[in-house]
């Protein structure tokens, strides 16, 4: 899968924000959802993508998730947003101090979490913002 921009070329100056990791069965879905969220947030820190299996197939890869958490972690904690099914189970294996799983719609939750993280929200605030996305109505 294509790697997100390294920390150095993001222009975030290493500003500490809560990390957001998108866990999907599909590598491209995770990468593009991260890009969409980053686009909507402006110049902030984009979510990290952990999609597909390590060999590029559909599925989840625990090693990819672990690596994305490590990239996203700036000391303030990390919110994991899984798409569905096995992604939820794989994400939950990483739950622990500073790492939480958000039970939210994938796209709406990713955008809400990225916006809240870049606004300087705490781990709890970013999780709460993501969870509010569950109630967004489209009509």
């Amino acid at each position: 899968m294509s790697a997100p921009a390294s920390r150095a070329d993001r222009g975030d100056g290493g500003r500490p924000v809560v990390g957001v990791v998108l866990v999907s069965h599909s590598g491209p879905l995770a990468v593009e959802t991260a890009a969409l969220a980053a686009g909507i947030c402006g110049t902030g820190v984009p979510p990290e993508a952990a999609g597909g299996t390590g060999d590029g197939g559909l599925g989840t890869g625990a090693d990819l998730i672990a690596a994305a958490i490590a990239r996203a972690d700036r000391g303030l904690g990390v919110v994991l947003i899984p798409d569905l099914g096995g992604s939820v189970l794989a994400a939950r294996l990483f739950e622990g101090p500073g790492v939480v799983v958000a039970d939210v719609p994938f796209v709406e939750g990713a955008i809400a979490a990225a916006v809240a993280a870049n606004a300087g929200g705490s781990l709890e605030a970013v999780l709460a913002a993501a969870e509010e996305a569950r109630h967004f109505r489209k009509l």
Partner: protein
Amino acid sequence: MDARFFTAWIEEAARSLRDGRDELTRLDAAIGDADHGSNLDRGFTEAVRALAERRPATPGAVLALVGGTLIRKVGGASGPLYGTAFREAGKALGETPEVSPAGFAAALEAGVAGVRRLGSAAEGDKTMVDALAPAARALAEAVQDGRAAAETRAGAGRDPSETGRGDGGLARALEAAAAAAEAGAEATVPMQARKGRASYLGPRSVGHLDPGAASAALILRALHTVASR
């Protein structure tokens, strides 16, 4: 049961899952995404390789290594689920070099509890829990019955260490567990799935054997096979 026994179990399970790969995939094609057989074959093959390389010294370490490998190498939902089952069972075994049937029964229960927790699944949801939970209960009961029988014989003046606690008793207890898992898997056929990918199918999931329950029965049958050698 020592580390070699548990390693032999995983080797036998890997063989059995390889033989059953196409059947598991066929079951998964009916109500899922047709990758269960190949995912588990890959995961258990990797687990056998990891055990051969690292040669863990205790049963708990064997199961922990198997669990970690399945989590990393199985791309589907069954990776985290089986991985958690083996990890939790391994944790329950602790550092002991030799596991008693009662100790293993408790470890299997801990493994099943881990699966229920992670997947929020209960019996009747048409998942691997429908095979695992009856197996854990059957094993606990068989171990208890074996002990009671041994105590009766001891009361009649015979040495309990010679009867009811030998390998024959273990094989019988594991036969009960495997048979309960197979019956539990078969019982998923008329169920409507409430968890997992098949739940998206709603009523159309009725009439199919759950692939996760089928693979759980194969893995537990492998345990009996190894104990009967």
